[in-house]
């Protein structure tokens, strides 16, 4: 007892401090070893110098980076108008799939078909089909723009996923909440709007954050049908300079955006887990 008092720590606290110290030493050592192995071993490979020249060329990176950033604005723009459209359409599809009214039965079928179809087709295929197909109808400017139809392809595909996440959120609200609200005299619609949806949406925010991150990356798929966004711009530079470094530059720009977003989504999930405990 007196010994413990002298140290100012309980037996348990001293044990845990020792454990933490041990874990820190092991983590540091293994990290140093792995990094050292990469730094030493990779340059020893026969093709390293060539790879370094064509992928990690400092001069090319500096030369192309500002233009890549410029092109990234197009990604941001497409993202900015697609994301809200996806949120709204996704929510509507989720509600349509859960509707019980017989008059809205066609809507329910439509919702189910919609999610089945757009979750079942690779994004790139949807982009191609809609992005080339619809302008092929010979629509007048601006209705032949790949920006519009490419964005639509993304909106349709992502809405299907987002709708399923919303639906799992709606299911996660305990049915007793619905009973309680109904017992007060609220209509089914009011119950959904005032009681179920606010809780459902809150429950799926972290999962939807992941969809946003994925969308940010998939905007690049539109490059296949025309828009000169960052991936396409990097491709142009690659052809001009015969060097792959612009792709690495593009990857860096994506990471600058997606890493903080991923961290934030993780933080939200961790917080939610804590709240549920």
């Amino acid at each position, binding site marked *: 007892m007196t010994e413990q008092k002298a140290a100012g720590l309980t037996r348990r606290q001293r044990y845990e401090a020792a454990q933490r110290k041990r874990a820190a030493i092991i983590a540091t050592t293994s990290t140093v070893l792995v990094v050292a192995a990469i730094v030493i071993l990779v340059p020893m490979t026969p093709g390293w110098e060539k790879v370094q020249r064509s992928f990690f060329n400092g001069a090319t990176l500096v030369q192309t980076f500002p233009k890549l950033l410029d092109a990234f604005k197009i990604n941001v723009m497409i993202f900015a108008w697609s994301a809200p459209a996806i949120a709204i359409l996704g929510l509507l599809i989720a509600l349509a799939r859960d509707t019980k009214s017989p008059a809205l039965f066609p809507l329910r079928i439509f919702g189910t078909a919609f999610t089945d179809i757009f979750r079942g087709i690779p994004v790139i295929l949807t982009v191609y089909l809609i992005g080339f197909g619809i302008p092929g109808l010979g629509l007048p400017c601006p209705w032949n723009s790949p920006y519009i139809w490419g964005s639509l392809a993304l909106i349709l595909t992502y809405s299907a996923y987002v709708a399923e996440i919303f639906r799992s959120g709606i299911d996660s609200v305990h049915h*007793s*909440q619905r*009973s*309680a*609200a*109904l*017992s*007060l*005299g*609220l*209509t089914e619609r*009011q119950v959904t709007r*005032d*009681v179920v949806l*606010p*809780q459902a949406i*809150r429950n799926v925010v972290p999962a939807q954050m992941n969809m946003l991150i994925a969308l940010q990356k998939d905007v690049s798929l539109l490059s296949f049908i025309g828009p000169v966004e960052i991936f396409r711009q990097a491709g142009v530079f690659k052809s001009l300079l015969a060097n792959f470094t612009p792709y690495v530059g593009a990857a860096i720009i994506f990471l600058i955006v997606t890493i903080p977003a991923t961290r934030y989504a993780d933080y939200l999930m961790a917080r939610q887990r804590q709240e549920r405990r």
Partner: protein
Amino acid sequence: MAKLELRGVVKRFGDVTVCDGIDLDVEEGQMVCLIGASGGGKSTLLRCINLLEPIEDGAILLDGEDVSVPGLDPQRVRSRIGMVFQSFNLFPHMTALENAMLAPRRVKGKSREEVRPEVEALFTRFGLADRMDKYPDQLSGGQQQRVAIVRALAMKPDVMLFDEITSALDPQLVGEVLDVLLQLKAEGMTMVLATHEMEFARQAADKVCFLKDGKIIEEGPPSEIFNAPKRAETRAFLERALK
């Protein structure tokens, strides 16, 4: 004419008959306690009265009007019959005050300003004035259940149903919730309770009904049911429950 009358109410879930022809009269201002083992049909009966479960056969009359007619607008009936649940079921994303104001605003179409003073008065009456702006998570079980009662009362119902409302509470919190029931009884509220609180039923109920296998086996004033039960099943249940 009784305030609330049940006539041969039958409720089945698949092949299981949960309520098997229940007749019950609840007079205005009466407190009726339903007792019996879990699974006896008490909770289901309450849910049927509130039209949360459609009944297969029989009728439920409120002020002489058959409210169990299939196709009748259930909202209108439910807004006259308040219900409180074992698990409180407060809306976790709203403060206590918002919980209680939601139904008057949505169902009766009143504005926040109209509803607020009435609802605040209810909170004050049940000793919850300083808890109005808290979220359910921030309240004790007893407080949450009292808020749930206030939420139901905010609709000014004619009849209140209580479904084992103290069963999920720590023993020391039961008293504050039962006190609310006594207060309501004193004010003349018509109430039906499903309860395991035998002592409370004995002291406060006007009528006690013993349910078993979906039937009312025996009913009468608490003095008769608890002191001189006529049926063997009632005696057996009470022996176990009062031990």
